[in-house]
């Protein structure tokens, strides 16, 4: 005998739906419009968040419990000409018959894989269906550009700008040529944290980068391949916290930037600047004319030196100099305004 779900009291139906996992609900609500309507009327997802990973082979959406990340479920969307034989079909977004299968993920979490034609932006379609049903916040989006066509990843950025720019973290990783690299810098629009982990494969010192025109308004920005960064770029980043790696600015140029930064009387958004380069710096040049006080006795163990100086607006800026423990000798400064 079956259990006639909709003949139970409404609060019991609610409790049953609230006790189901995301995948079970997703499949259940594809059964009929009424089932979906009842779920949406009765259940509000709480204390969970979505993480999205986009890559060449697949996109996947992880639903994770906020306070206990060990509880999670995953939805995959794959682009394939053929799908496995043992599938079932579901109506997802505007597509009636999407081949789907339950597939245990490598780490044992429950997973549902959906197979889509190559001609559609399946990641966006699955996202639309998931967000319409569960209405939960997106915590992190990771885009891996490795072997992804330019048209595809530009589509991802445009989709992100239109739909997800308030996500907590956008992380872009992988490789691309410098022209695509610049396109992304100039076009991505994120409000919170941007981690730009892309390596520009064909970058050379002869490339002209001073005309790169970007306006990051994120709260936090990290750029792993910062070889192209000029003085003016530093000034145009409006983030509160900025981390730049592999930069090629000289100690004199850094000093000039610091002098300008120090002398600013009006409020400047940037409160933390971290810069790393593949060479040793001369702190004497970097801090020349800053009236820096040596704070050797106060420095944490992991840094080589610590100083501080006073900004024109009266705030204290603490400076540390450290060496990173990575393969290539990497040294850097952190400038932190405030306590």
């Amino acid at each position, binding site marked *: 005998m079956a*259990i006639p779900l909709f003949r*139970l009291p409404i609060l019991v139906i609610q409790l049953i739906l*609230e*006790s189901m996992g995301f995948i079970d609900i997703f499949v259940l609500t594809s059964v009929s419009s009424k089932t979906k309507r009842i779920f949406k009327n009765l259940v509000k997802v*709480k204390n969970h968040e979505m993480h999205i990973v986009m890559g060449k082979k697949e996109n996947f959406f992880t639903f994770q419990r906020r306070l206990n990340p060990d509880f999670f479920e995953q939805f995959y969307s794959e682009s394939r000409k053929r799908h496995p034989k043992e599938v*079932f079909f579901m109506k997802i977004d505007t597509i009636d018959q999407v081949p789907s299968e339950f597939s245990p993920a490598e780490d044992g979490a429950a997973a549902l894989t959906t197979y889509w034609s190559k001609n559609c932006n399946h990641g966006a379609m699955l996202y639309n269906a998931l967000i319409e049903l569960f209405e939960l916040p997106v915590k992190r989006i990771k885009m891996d550009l490795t072997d992804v066509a330019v048209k595809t990843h530009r589509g991802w950025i445009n989709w992100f700008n239109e739909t997800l720019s308030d996500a907590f973290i956008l992380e872009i990783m992988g490789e691309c040529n410098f022209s695509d690299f610049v396109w992304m810098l100039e076009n991505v629009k994120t409000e919170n944290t941007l981690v730009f982990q892309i390596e520009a494969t064909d970058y050379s010192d002869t490339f002209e980068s001073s005309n790169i025109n970007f306006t990051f308004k994120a709260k936090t920005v990290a750029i792993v391949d910062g070889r192209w960064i000029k003085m003016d770029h530093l000034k145009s980043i409006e983030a509160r916290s900025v981390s730049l790696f592999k930069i090629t600015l000289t100690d004199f140029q850094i000093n000039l930037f610091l002098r300008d930064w120090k002398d600013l009387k009006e409020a400047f958004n940037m409160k933390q600047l971290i810069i790393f380069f593949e060479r040793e710096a001369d702190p004497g040049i970097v801090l020349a004319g800053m009236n820096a006080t040596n704070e050797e006795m106060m420095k944490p163990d992991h840094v080589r030196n610590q100083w501080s100086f006073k900004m024109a607006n009266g705030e204290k800026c603490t400076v540390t100099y450290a060496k990173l423990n990575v393969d290539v000798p990497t040294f850097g400064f952190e400038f932190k305004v405030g306590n």
Partner: protein
Amino acid sequence: MSVENAPVVDVDEAAIPVEKKMYYRFESNDKKEFRVSELAIQQSETLNRLVEAMGYTSEDVENKPAIAIENIDGKTLKLVFQWCEHHKGEAIPVDDGSVPKIVEIPEFDAKLMDIDNGLLFKLIWAADYLNIVQLLNVSCKKVANMAQGKTPAQLRRVYLLPSDEEDEAAKRAAQEAQDPRAREVEEEFEERKRQGGNSFF
């Protein structure tokens, strides 16, 4: 511990140690009587309030008729009271507010609920009616677990879910049953349209 070895539902007074514990007598709608300890009753908000309001003494329990629970049968009530006896003294769980909820089904409860779906359906109704929070949680979780790994077609069968077409047909049938004239008027209207009439009147 198996269900058979679970704490007795019909309380044997000889089994009650040193100090005499209070118990109550209940009767199902098919006239089966149960003796249940006061501590076990506390798992049910409905019964707990009821016995508090009645203010029975031990003598009252013996001399007065058993408290009738008119909409639950003996088979279901036996399961309910077995569950309450096993979990007596346990704190009523507090929801942490997360959805989906994480509900673990203890081994005893899993065995207790190893029953056919008809009885499980009645057990859920009973747990809801008697307001036994944790029994309702685990029984709903058992029903929720039935969805795991099921395709849409299988879910239709498991939960008796009609398709959109079936829902639509049922809606039409209900409307017709309510007002048979409405369908006749609709058909007449359609017929006139087919004949080229541009006004119903």
